[in-house]
């Protein structure tokens, strides 16, 4: 198993491509099952794009992403210096049941992340949002 990855991304949506490429390389090296690669990409995209799209008012800022591979889980940490945002409490509740014409999409990304992670913790520290999530390697 390799150690993982650490990347600093600019707050531009195109940076997602660099992140995805880094995950795909790691997944190949460590022989991840396709389902795990899917989950890690999804968790990272939903959380990182939230930061890129909403944390800052202007460009030229950064978001730090790290991923550490353990036996039983992959621990992802996302850090930014944007406006305080705790996805655990500040994201809207997703709409899962409304008929199609009334259905809205808000909050779905964070909901998907919660369903794919075994642990999710947020803290605001020294002017930074620090979000840590764990993706189980099995199941």
């Amino acid at each position, binding site marked *: 198993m390799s150690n993982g990855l650490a990347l600093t991304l600019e707050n531009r*949506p*195109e940076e*997602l*491509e660099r992140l*995805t490429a880094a995950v795909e390389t790691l997944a190949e090296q460590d022989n991840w099952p*396709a*389902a795990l690669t*899917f*989950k890690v*990409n*999804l968790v990272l*995209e*939903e959380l990182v*794009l939230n930061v890129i799209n909403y944390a800052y008012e202007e460009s030229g800022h950064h978001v730090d992403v790290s991923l550490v591979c353990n036996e039983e889980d992959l621990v992802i940490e996302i850090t930014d210096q944007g406006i305080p945002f705790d996805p655990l409490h500040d994201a809207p509740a*997703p709409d*899962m*049941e409304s*008929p*199609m*014409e009334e*259905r809205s*999409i808000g909050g*779905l*990304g964070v*909901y*998907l992340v919660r*369903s794919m992670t075994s642990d999710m913790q947020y803290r605001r520290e020294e002017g930074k949002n620090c979000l840590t999530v764990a993706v189980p390697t099995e199941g």
Partner: protein
Amino acid sequence: MELKTTREGTNLIVDMEGRVDGTNAMDFQSALEGAIQQSDQGVIMDMGQLQYISSAGLRVILLVAKSLQKQNAKLLGCALSESVREIFAISGFDKIVPVHDSRADALKALED
């Protein structure tokens, strides 16, 4: 992401290939909307070659499903991989976009 479309009568079949994520969801939306005609009764998204979809892609599917409903047409999915099927189930999308095992099953469902 690549879309290939074919027609079977008044049904449009959309082969989705690759990834639909936050970087290309807008392209996916314009390609899908551009392919749909007013006369379409059914649209089948064949996801057999779809490797990845995030909430950005689901958002587009919801928008297209809503506009199809206005023209009394149906949106269906088929051949979902295990991971995509899981996303559909978790998000409750399988309740607004019926999913079928194969393209043949989806076409049959439109006939019924």
